[in-house]
Every structure is written in C-alpha cells, then in structure tokens.
C-alpha cells in the first residue's frame, strides 16, 4: 500500500501509483515463477488493485509495457538472494525512477524527437511512502515528505502514536548534511535556500523531478525546448541534486499495534501524529474525538461559555458519520475548530477553485490500514 503526493503537475504521481506496485511485486517473485511469468503471453496481472481510478494513455501503456519487460529480464539475470522485502522495495523504486528518465530521454537519443508525454512525467515529481505487510512483518519505504504513523493502544487503553518514517525535507538535519556533503562547499549557500532544494523543491528526495537530476546538456536538449530556459534551476552546477533512494524501515507488529496511517504532508501540517491516532482510534470505537475546550479568552461570561458548549454539543449531534477513517482525518484536518468540525469551513475550503486552493490548504492523501489483533496474537514469534 502506498500514498503518492505529486508536485509540478499530477503526471508523475499518477504514473508511479499505477506502475510501482508491479515493479515491487515482480522483485518479490521467486526466480522460477519469474521465469515462467516472463514466458507468459499475454501476462496475467501481478497484483489486484484497489482505488485504481486513472487510466494510462494507450501509447504510454505500450511504452511502459516495454520498460517492464526489460525490467523483468534484468531481474531474471540478477543474482537472486531469495525473498527480501527491503531490497525489493528499494530496487523497484530506484528502477522505476530510472525508467521515467529513460522513457523521456531515449526518443531524443534515438530519433532526436521529444515525447511531450513521457517528458512531462519525468519533469513532474512525486514523493511516496510505500508499505509491505506480510504477517507480523511491516516494511516501509519512504521517499520525500510523507509519513507513516502507527497507532498503538496500551494496556491502559491509551493511544500512543509511533512515527515510523522520517520525512525528507529541510527539517531533517541528517538529510541536509547528506546534500551538503554531496556537493562542493561553495554551493553550500545555494543548494538549500529558503528551506528548499535549490530554492525550489520542498521535499529533498523524490521520484521524477529530472530537472534536478539530469546533467545540464540533457536538460538543454530535452527540457528547454519544451518549457524554456527556466527549466534549468539557478545554481545548477553539480547535478544530480536529487535522488529517489528510499529510506527503509522495519517494524514487527504486535497486538498493541492497531493501525497504520499513511499520509502526505498536507495532513501532518494540520495535526500531530498523536491527534491523528486518537481520531482514528476514536473513530474505531465509533466515537468522535474532541479536543477539550480551551476558553477562547479571559473574563468570559458564563452565558457565553454555555453558548460555546451548546454549539459544541450541536456539532457532536451532527457529527460526521464518516465510514472511512481516512475521510474522518481529512475532515478534521480541514474543518477542525475549537467546537468540533465546522461544516461551512470545511465546505468552503473544499470548494475553492484549484488555482487558488493551494494558498489555503495543501492537497491531502491518507490511507489507514487496520491490523487484526487476533491474527497477530496467534502469530508465531
């Protein structure tokens, strides 16, 4: 399962979300199965997908199919160490990122033509947080500024949030150090400016975004003709500046682990991991979680407090009956106020036209995954 948060246009995120799972699945196939699978024609789907809403253009499909076949062949020739989830996740993510580049550059190299479709995919970008769950084994690969947070219920019935991932942005000091070390000292002031890579990009790792990865010559030949000279970022001296290499995490699930929230930075800007965990936890119990009332000002009259409380009670009554915990989280992230969810605020923020909405809110993607405690209890150690 994964969340993919695109930027600079939706193309990259859409393509990644369609293709990455196949890449991962292929990397996890036992070698004999892989060989048989390569022989299949037509090949059956490797994975069943949920929430699969976008369709890829026919000509791109053929292109991607070719890349995938090459990838399978490469996999078959790789020394096979057996079933290894973290390796598979990392391999797949890096490989698909390389394929995005190849699919954009190859037409130019071969025929001096530019395919605007593959190029727009390679020039836009996406961060991704992908998990693989096998029995009690939870693996997470993270590229960029999404986060995975585990909801834990203690014996005392209290919710604890465990943030598993560390986002790749300028708040992550290790990440800053990595980037500074990869480039000459004289670029120290320019490589991260205004908390962004080269003053432009907020996440410090991502898929696509080849404006920060390709050598200048390729950018000049491929990108500049399409989008003009601003395709090359300022102070672009020692590319690549960006990588798609994921951080990998492992957690062994216990019966206390009740669910995992995967969400883009849009959610984590609005609430803390613990708030999110409590919201999902209460949602699990069918209750609405309310932050305790903090009085809005000093010297308040009792009558006004009563009004405030009546208002809260009213919103409790009209509490959103979200069937889905992820929707519940987003509703609170956007519509949350002192007295619960304010529907008009929520409606307003959701109905802003796309061109201005970014000034008031980020897009938010959330996936909540529940764990079966009974299954985990019986899992052999």
């Amino acid at each position, binding site marked *: 399962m994964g969340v993919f948060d695109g930027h600079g246009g939706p193309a990259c995120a859409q393509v990644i979300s369609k293709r990455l799972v196949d890449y991962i699945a292929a990397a996890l196939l036992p070698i004999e199965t892989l060989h048989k699978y390569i022989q299949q024609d037509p090949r059956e789907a490797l994975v069943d997908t949920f929430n699969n809403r976008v369709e890829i253009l026919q000509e791109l499909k053929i292109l991607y199919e070719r890349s995938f076949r090459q990838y399978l062949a490469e996999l078959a020739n790789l020394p096979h160490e057996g079933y290894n989830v973290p390796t598979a996740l990392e391999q797949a993510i890096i490989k698909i990122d390389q394929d995005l580049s190849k699919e954009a550059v190859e037409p130019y190299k071969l025929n001096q033509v530019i395919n605007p479709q593959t190029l727009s995919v390679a020039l836009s970008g996406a961060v991704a947080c992908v998990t693989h769950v096998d029995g009690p084994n939870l693996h997470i690969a993270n590229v960029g500024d999404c986060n995975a947070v585990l909801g834990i219920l203690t014996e*005392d*019935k*209290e919710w604890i949030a465990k943030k598993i991932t560390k986002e790749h942005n300028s708040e992550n000091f290790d990440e800053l150090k990595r980037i500074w070390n990869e480039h000459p000292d004289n670029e120290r002031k320019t490589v991260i400016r205004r908390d962004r890579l080269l003053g432009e990009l907020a996440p410090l790792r991502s898929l696509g975004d080849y404006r920060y990865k390709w050598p200048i010559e390729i950018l000049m030949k491929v990108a500049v003709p399409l989008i003009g000279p601003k395709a090359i970022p300022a102070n672009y001296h020692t590319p690549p500046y960006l990588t798609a290499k994921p951080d990998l995490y492992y957690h062994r699930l216990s019966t206390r682990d009740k669910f995992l929230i995967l969400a883009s930075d849009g959610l984590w800007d609005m609430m803390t991991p613990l708030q999110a965990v409590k919201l999902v936890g209460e949602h699990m119990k069918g209750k609405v979680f*309310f932050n*305790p*009332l903090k*009085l809005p000002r000093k*010297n*308040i*009259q*009792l*009558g006004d*407090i*009563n009004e*405030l*409380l009546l208002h*809260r*009670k009213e919103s409790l009554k009209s509490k959103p009956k979200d069937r889905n915990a992820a929707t519940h989280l987003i509703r609170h992230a956007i519509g949350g106020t002192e007295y619960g969810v304010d529907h008009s605020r929520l409606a307003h923020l959701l109905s802003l036209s796309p061109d201005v909405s970014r000034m008031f809110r980020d897009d938010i993607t959330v996936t909540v995954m529940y764990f079966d405690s009974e299954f985990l209890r019986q899992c052999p150690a």
Partner: protein
Amino acid sequence: MTVYRRMKSQSVSWSIDCDLVTPKKCHELFPMLNVEDVLGGLWIPGDGVGDPHLLCMSLMREATDKGVGVMEDCSVTAVLSKDDKVSGVETTNGAIECDYFINCAGFWARQVGQLARPQVKVPLLPCEHYYLHTKPIDNLDPMTPVIRDPDGYIYLRERDGCILAGGFEPIAKPVYEEEIENASQRCLPEDWDHFHVLLQELLQRVPGLNQAVLHKLCNGLEAFSPDCKWIVGEAPEMLNYHVAAGMKTVGISAAGGVAEATVDEIIDGYSKYDMHELGVNRFLGLHNNKRFLRDRVKEVPGVHYGLPYPFYEFETGRNLRLSPIYPTLRDNGAVFGQVMGYERPTWFETVENESEKPRPFKIAHTRTFGKPPWFDAVQREYWACRERVGLSDYSSFTKIDIQSQGREVVELLQYLCSNDVDVPVGSIIHTGMQNERGGYENDCSLARISENHYMMIAPTIQQTRCKVWLKRHLPSNGSVTLSDVTSMYTAICVMGPFTRSLLSELTDTDLSPSNFPFFTFKEIDVGLANGIRAMNLTHTGELGYVLYIPNEFALHVYNRLMTVGEKYGISHVGYYASRALRVEKFFAFWGQDLDTMTTPLECGRTWRVKFDKDIKFIGRDALLKQREDGIRRQYVQLLLTDHDHELDLWSWGGEPIYRDGNYCGQTTTTSYGFTFKKQVCLGFVEKRDKDGVTQKVDNDYVLSGHYEIDIAGIRYAAKVNLHSPNLPTKYPDKERDVYQATRKLHEPQQFLGRHYQP
C-alpha cells in the same frame, strides 16, 4: 416536595430547625433565584458555610499547641502489622513505631490501604468533581443562603463576593487510568463538555449568572464508595487500623463527628452512635475490585443529590454474585435486588411470554414513596407463603461453620452468645452476640451439627463483620476453627402450610413434628441428592424449611421441589414478601431493627438471654444492670389504623413516632401487613422528660399511650403491639403458633418440640 415533606417531618428526630417555604419565599431569600418552575423549598435557617482550608489550618494549630506532631511533604510507604495489629509506619522520612493508624487519606485512601501489610481494603475511587468560581458580583449579599437544587444536581453559595457553584452530575467521570501520585496532581484538566450539564442547570436556576464572569472552573477530585456512604471504623484486616474516608465532599461538616467517633473507638473501643452502616467492615473483597469501582462510581455522585427513594438499587456492577438457580429464577420472572454483591430476587413478575429465554435481567426499582409498583406481585407471593407453598432463594445469607476437636467451640460460643448454645445435637438456637454494652454485634441462628460443630446463619450484610467479631475472640491456640461456607451452599427456603407434605415426598426422612420438630436441624437426602442441611424454620414466622444444599445439587433439588410442588400450588417468592411476613410477625432483623446499641431487653427478647449460664457471656453485666435499672426504649409494633395504602404515602422507615402528641422515637422497618390489611411499622418508643432526657419505660407506659406516626407531615393514628401477634390462618399449626419472636418476659411455655429449647 414529598422528599422535602419527609425531611421536614423527620427533622424532629435530629432537632434540626427547618421550614417548608413557598416559591415566593424562596425568591425573597435569594432574589436571583428563578422560581418559575419551583413548587416549594426547604429552608434551614441554621445552615452555614465554612472554609475547608482555614478549618484544617486551625485544627492543625490547635493540635500542635497540644503537642501533636505534624510532618509535611512526607509520604507513607508502608503500614506494618505484628500479630494482626498495627505496629508501625514506614515513610519517606524514615520509620515510625505506632500503636494506631488512621487512614484518612481522602481519595488516596484506597491506595494507602494497599500499602498496608496485609492490605487493607478501602473501596472507593475518586471522581472528577466540578465547581466554578465567578468574578465578584455586584451587591451580592454575604448572607446569601446556600442553594441546593437536587433536581438540577447543583449547589451554589456566596464566597468573598463571588458565587461558588458546583454539582453532582448523574453520570460522573471516575479517575481510573490515571494514578494520582501527589498533591500537585489533585486537580485534573477541566472538561467543559462534562460540566456543561451542570452549567445549564445553574443558568436555569440563577439566570443572572449568564452575565457573571468566570474566574475559574476547578476539577477537584472527590472519592465515593460503592454505596455512597462514608467509610469509617476499624479495618477487618488489622487491629488498630482505622479508616475515615469517602466523605464525598461533605468532609468539612462530617469531620467533627467522624473524628469523635474514631477517637471514641480508639479510646473506649466503641462509638457513641451505631455506625454499622458506615463501617469499613460492611464490604467484601469484590467491592475493592478497581473495575467494579470504576463502573459503580459513575452513578454514585448522582445518588448524593438524587431522590432517596426506598430500596435504592444501583444499575452498575450488577450480576456479580449469583446463586446456581439464578438463571432459572430470572427466567421465571425474578426482579433482582443486590445485597453484598448478591443478586437476590425481590419479587417475581408474571411471565407472559414463556418462550422468551433467557429473560432480560431486571432491577428492582421502587421509585415512589406511595404504594409501590410491586404491591400486587408481593401480595400474591405473601399469600402463597401463608396458604400454599412459597419458594425463596436465601443463598445470600452468611453461613459459617465453627468447630473444634473438644468442647472449645461450645465454650467460645457460650462466651459470645447471650442465649444458651449448649443444646442437644440437632437443635437450632437463635441467639444474639452481645458487646460489652449488651448491644447486638450479631443476631444469628446456630445449628448444632454435631457435638463440637455449629453452623451459624447470619444476615447477609454480616458476612465480613461477624467473622471479624468471631475471629477476634477465637482462642489464640487455634483450637476453634471457623470457615466461611457462604459460597458453598445454596439456600432454598420453602414456606407455607403444605411444605411438610411437599418435602416428605422428596425424602425418606420422617418429617413429623415428633421426629423433626420446629427449630431443629437434620442432614437429609432430597430427591437424588444427599448432604442437605435442612432446618425447620423460615426466619419469617411461617412453617417451612430452609435447605442448605451443596451448590452442585442446587438445581436438582430446586427442580424436584418445583415439579412435586406443582400440586401444592408452589410459587416463587421474593425478598419483599418474606420481609412483609416477618414485619407483620414482629420479627426484628439485625441491621434494620437491631444494631450495636440495641439490647435484647429493649426488643422483647429477654427470654433469649440466659443470665444463669456457667460461662459469663460478653455483655452480661450490662444486661443485668439494665434489667435492674429498667430500659429506656422499647421495641414496638405499630399498626396504622386510618391509613389508606392506595392513596396515602407509605411509611418506609425513619418516620417519627408521637405518643400523646409528643415525639417519642422513630420507625425502623415497615411493611404493608397483608393479613392485617394495614401498614405495619416496627420501631422504638422512648420516654423523654421535658428536657429531652430519656426515662425508664415499661409495658404499662408503652401500652397506655395514644400513638401517631408522621409520614411526610401527616400523622396517622397507630395501635401498639408489644408481642408477635397471632395471625388468623386457614391452616393453624399448633407448633408454630406458639412461637413468638418477641414476647413477654418468661412467659410460660406451652407445647414445644422435643428438642426445642428457646
């Protein structure tokens, strides 16, 4: 208003000056009060306020002046005992040797109890308790009365020109998960949503508060016990370990009295007033279960201000102790009351839909001060017991086996009991266990199972209490052993004129009076089961048997009784019917009529006191002195002659009794007498001189008065009885009729069973 009328009428017993007032008068007393929806009020001119902090400081100053040491910022880490007696306290500042320890740690009392070795159970749990302070309010009279609005669960008062207001919400928030470790944590973050229900009531009652500015809302913690009563007295686990906790916000007004009682207990060994209802030994281990407390205390604060209906039942912490026949009784219409955690059928509803099984659990609510909703059911059961056969679950009774190798057990019981227990094997003796003052510590039946083995049957609520009394008097050499067999036996009582015929169909034992007379015991076979301890008595005055059945046989015996009983018209009978029987028969019950301050001489039981036993029993001197000096109060039965049970409010206990127009005592237990067709009240009558000092009373004095009972302000004429009446019956039984629980001194005995020795 009924509650206020009852309070006003009963205030005479406590000499509290109070008045019923009109809404208009309420408004005059406190002009900010909204009286639109008020029917009336109770005005207590002598009511006042105190500052708990200042009070504590001044008490402490007084104490230190008199040489008491006070240590602050010092935590108790353990309370140690030696030979079941407090020996010392360990603290963060070192160990202290001591003879007495008083646990008055407020809502920490339960935790402090757990520090004792062995642990002392102090079953209480803190709840969040809210009150707010406003900023100063203009022209607020410092003499503003304290307002209590029980319907709105709120109270408010003036404090330094501001209003302090709080309440007892119907559903409270117990502190369960958080451990409150130190004083800085004693105030929890406020939950305005939880307080809202009280705030709304406050604003409704005093609309002017809408404009009042909030100073702060406090969420202090207050501890509540499972039955909403204080917890005081010496702990059953350890001698000299006293508890004074669970004051549920009224600590400031309770402090003086509770302290006096505690000091009296330490110095004299007993308090001036009977306190068994508050005693820490009224609990069982189950009451200290934290989850039980968490569930229960949710509804306890609400009870503090709730309407004090008779026979109050809690909704939570139910279905805890269940007899083996509980599911069958429930499916047959039983409605349950809880006593010591035990679900006891109180009455049986008619089951209309036979196929609905299991029937839902039903709680016995009365919720009226007039004719109760269970009247018809109890009437039906009453007549079953008097004219056919009634079957009742007595399993909750305390059952204790006491035995020894030699005669030690007989000597011990002769010392503890005021009656003569050295009776032939197979006899049952009904006896009090007196304290040094002659009062009842326990009232029980003792069946002599064998030469040196007795089975004691005591009231349910005595389970912890009477064991402590026995244990503290056991010979130190361990020669007498005591085992609580309450949970080993299911007790089924069959009562009514046909019980002998019924039981004889199920057993080969000869049940004729010559072989198995009244007030005797036999171990018999019933149905296919064996080892059933059958006692020929019913505790209600009816002919019948109580069968103490080993648990695994209980359902079998029950089924046989019901099957064979069908042709005798057997019916299930609940507690209220047996209660009605015993009140009409003028049987006193420990904990309801009798207590640690009541002597046998005062309640017509002198005939059960054997002054001339070889062994001088506890309380003998006090009773001898009372026999010389005469008694100052007399237990009587009063029948209301002009009371309409359909229309008038009922008497439920605690009502004042007037003799020739003068207050002379209070009722204890009451019931409707289905044979008399009158309200029956039991109670004590005193003679007071003009200064209120009690004087000697005798039968002539009691019988010569004209009595009235005041129920919620209306006085009903009453006819007085000193002795158990002979109720007319279609099925006279010579043997039973001669038995009177309450009777004249040394009345010549007529026909008695072979073994019967009163």
